[in-house]
């Protein structure tokens, strides 16, 4: 272990900024957040960073460590390569100060997701088998660190797409609802026309950075894309629906349930 830690932390706000270099004695077993806290305590009391649980479960301390979105509290210093460690704010979201970004874009998108719409409650209550809820449980592990949103090039490199792109975090929410056996809404046309599912070109970066190891692309986005194909691009599926008269709530009805 090196005797000294060199950390280059982004300091600045919406008017601009630059990396500031801090040198500290190395301590065994530290994570990046520990070092940031030591910088705050000893060298830069005004360094802004968002954190809460220090256990990888609150999703607050997302940052770009050596250029890759990671949770500061789950990134061990001894597992980073030799040399200065670079810590920058998430690039996709507007900066507030230093390492703190304004992630309210995500909360605005969240309002667009038509909520769970079960059928009228039957006598004796709803009953579900374990096999029916297993798929959706994976998506419930999301801690909303928004690193998948940050790394997704659709909005990371193309700000204009934010107006019509929900992003990976919300695609897993859509998938959770679409796959729910008791849900009656049909969100597929909404996904296709308004939420930008077609903008995703499945490069799997969201899956790579997910700290909860949710298989976002394989288990949520691609299944949603296939469901959208069922609804919009597959004439055989359309014929099957027409003959069998299968219908969920219309997209308008589904969207109207959103706030």
């Amino acid at each position, binding site marked *: 272990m090196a005797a000294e830690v060199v950390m280059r932390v*982004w300091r*600045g*706000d*919406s*008017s601009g*900024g630059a*990396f500031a270099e801090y040198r500290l004695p190395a301590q065994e077993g530290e994570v990046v957040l520990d070092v940031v806290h030591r910088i705050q305590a000893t060298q830069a009391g005004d360094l802004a960073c968002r954190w809460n649980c220090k256990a990888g479960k609150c999703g607050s301390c997302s940052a*770009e460590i*050596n*250029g*890759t979105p990671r949770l500061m509290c789950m990134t061990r210093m001894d597992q980073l*390569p030799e*040399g200065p460690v*670079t810590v*920058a704010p998430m*690039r996709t979201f507007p*900066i507030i100060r230093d390492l703190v970004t304004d992630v309210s*874009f995500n909360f*605005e*998108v969240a309002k667009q997701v038509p909520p769970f719409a079960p059928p009228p409650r039957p006598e004796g209550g709803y009953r579900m*088998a374990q*096999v*029916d809820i297993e798929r959706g449980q994976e998506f419930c592990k999301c801690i909303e660190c928004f690193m998948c949103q940050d*790394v997704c*090039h*659709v909005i*990371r*490199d*193309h*700000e204009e797409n*934010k*107006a019509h792109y929900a992003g990976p975090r919300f695609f897993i929410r859509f998938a959770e609802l679409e796959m729910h*056996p008791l*849900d009656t809404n049909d969100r597929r*046309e*909404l996904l296709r*026309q*308004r939420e*930008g599912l*077609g*903008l995703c*070109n*499945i*490069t799997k*970066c969201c899956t790579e950075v997910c700290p909860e190891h949710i298989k976002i692309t394989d288990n949520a986005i*691609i*299944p949603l894309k*296939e*469901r*959208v*194909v*069922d609804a*919009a*691009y597959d004439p055989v599926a359309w014929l099957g629906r027409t003959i069998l008269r299968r219908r969920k709530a*219309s*997209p*308008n009805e589904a*969207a*109207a349930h*959103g706030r």
Partner: protein
Amino acid sequence: MSVEGATITPVRLGGVRGGPAARTLRRDRWWVQPAISAVVLTAFVVYSTWAVFVNKDYYVGAAAHRDLISPFFSPCITASCVAGAHGTFLVITWWHITPALLILGGPLGFRLTCYYYRRAYYRAFWQSPPACAVADAHTRYTGETRFPLIFQNIHRYFFYIGLIFNVILTIDAVMAFRLPGDGGIGVSVGTLVLVVNAVLLWTYSLSCHAARHLCGGHVDAFSKHPVRHRLWRLLTPLNARHMQFAWVSLVFVALTDLYVRLVASGAFTDPKIF
């Protein structure tokens, strides 16, 4: 169906991004993976194009006591196919250029629209993005929402076509157990090559995301569809290895063609095992 006029909350945009303007701050060798993808895919395209247009040495027939056909040329359905290579059910007489061109659209379309290959070539060639957290090489991006990339959505139809080819190549592998004029049935290295090729193509097809959706992924209530649920559970672990199957089957199909080509050209004799 339309969602025009639906009352959904618009997303407020604005604010100034922070952090450095650099293309990436990554210090690892992020370019290695897209570079390897680009090299392997380019090598495959160059080799297969050459193999298709050279239009010879794709079949080892009775004269060599074998029945081996290259996967690039199977099914050989034109009258111009070398003697013994084509089937009897369908023989097209009006096609005069290389017979492989007539059939390669199916497997090619299946691979081109495959969810895994899309990731590979979007990264390797289109640089959109070249790697995670490395800036996109393009200033404008519309994804798969417009022509021509909107046609990626017909992947499932290419999956069906791919299954037909898998059946044909499986029949080829079974027929390769015949050693004409050499004692009926036996096994040669060529037989094993065709069998492994067919098995790899099946694993690639069955691990496909469209297959996983069509066999049961589209179902919401698995408890009401136990057969589909069982199929879905069967394909899910295969699907997790789709990338590996995609690469191995791609390379092996070229190696199979190369093996048949070398035997057919007389470079060496296909060794008989028993």
